[in-house]
């Protein structure tokens, strides 16, 4: 059976990572990059749950995923705070426009 639960979750996880990375590479808007970052972390959480389900340690996997949610929220808060500050300072969210530091 190709459409069983496990296969669907695998496809969704890989798809989410793909979307996230594609979005972060293509988009020039800072906000969309943060969204991409969040998608990637959500995919990682799904991967944890999936591996917990496969090796029969779903409880441990869930506790790990909960911890990831907490740290991930903090990262999101910091990222959004910086984005707000960038918007106030530069008046734009275009990453080409805010890139001034020379190599």
């Amino acid at each position: 059976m190709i459409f069983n639960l496990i296969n669907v979750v695998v496809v969704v996880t890989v798809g989410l990572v793909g979307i996230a990375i594609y979005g972060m590479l293509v988009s020039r808007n800072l906000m969309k990059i943060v969204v991409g970052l969040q998608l990637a972390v959500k995919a990682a959480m799904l991967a944890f749950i999936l591996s917990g389900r496969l090796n029969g340690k779903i409880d441990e996997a869930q506790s790990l995923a909960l911890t990831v949610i907490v740290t991930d929220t903090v990262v999101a808060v910091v990222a959004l705070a910086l984005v707000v500050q960038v918007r106030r300072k530069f008046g734009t969210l275009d990453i080409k426009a805010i890139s001034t530091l020379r190599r």
Partner: protein
Amino acid sequence: MNPQMALLWMIILPLGASPVAYMIGRLSYNRSKGLFGLARWVTLVTVMLTWIPLFFVGRAVVIDGPVSFKVGRIVMEMDGIGLLLSATVVLLGTLVTIFSLSYMKDEEGEEKYYALLPALCGMMIGLGCARDLFNLWVWFEGMAITSYLLVAFYRDQPGALEAGIKYLVQSAVGSVLVLFGISIIFLKAGTLDLVELREMASGFGPLGLAAGALFLAGFGVKAAMVPAHTWLPDAHSQAPSGISAMLSGVVIEAGLVAMLRALGVLSATSTAWGALLLMFGVLNMVVGNLMALRQTQVKRMLAYSSLAQVGYMLIGFGVSASYGLSNGAAGGFFHLFNHAMMKGLAFLAAGSLIYALYLSRGKHNPLMVEDLDGAAQRYPLTAFALSVALLALGGLPPLSGFMSKWQIFLAGAETRSTALLWLVIFAGLNSVLSLGYYAPLVNRMYRRQPSEAVKEGKPIAVSMALPMVAMLLFVVVLGFWPVWMSWLTAPAASSLLAGFGF
């Protein structure tokens, strides 16, 4: 104090001081200007107090081996690597706090700085003690979050904001990759304990290789391994100087330690990890040195030279990971400690010049190479400190940088492999190349007429000179008696080798 309690205190003290310093700073902010400085003293006292548990834990680790502490199912274990990392962190943290007393004085948001600095130290001490892959990741992420905030500390400066965003995005992608690696290992093994995993690792197959690659890429962002290094020069040059010293001296090395721990677990899956580390080491040296040559800002140049120095460490660790030589790991850890001292000294000296020339006038200019002209005439101590730090980084013989590089090169030669012999020669030549950008700075400070900026500069404070003198002593004394560090590097090296299954 028994070692278990001391270990607990060592982590709780700095982490607990963080909210206290913040609240005291906030509460006194509105009351009176005089009380406002209280936050900085809270931080200083805490960092100083951390020395006491460090002493007890350190004695126990050196004499009786690893100290472990159990909270529920989480085990914290301080072994040789953890001890070396914590000792470096606490030492550099103390010196940076003393330096910041006048550097950050009356800066807007000073209490946040003093809240975040001990938190950063505590997170790194925790990272050194993690014995569980997921626990390692949590400490790593905590360290990353505190350092994002510190890099973007001057939040009104466009450059600092850009550096903060760049650093955050790259580093967060790196930690997501690590997370995927951990979930792969969890899938295969059903446990995340580093010791238990080591025995199962031979059965991981291709998925184990994938996890290793994810660890290498993910932790590699933090350790500034070359294709993922682009955040580093921006972050190091835009952060407050004390934080540049912390970032360059210990934060990237903490990333390296985390990577070594994670890869050590997978040593039975593949024997190629050591060779990969060597490859990245070469890349880091070449790119770091070549990019540093064309920099015009002092702090950016120092940041690129950090890349090159990480390259040497990678070579030391790579040699011991592929050949099982303890000399390589000991040299790598010795270089880690020396780098914290040398690069910390260089950043603090550059920072005190920035303070004297620009910051004390309320300007946020970067320190350009031209500003150093004739600095020795007005700032003899700072110029001397910067010169010694630069020459030690370049690896001139009587200084500590030479000793650790020499130990790494000797380990490379000890393998009796032709390829590694060439690699050592190449690394030696790279050291010579690095003098190409260090020496002109020394020349400028001592042999040019003072620049306009230097003539108008303000004097530097005593609390800035004090940590510089301490680090100067470390750099010079360890150059003459490198054996004084082997009580710390030898246990670290044997823990690393045990981690890689030798």
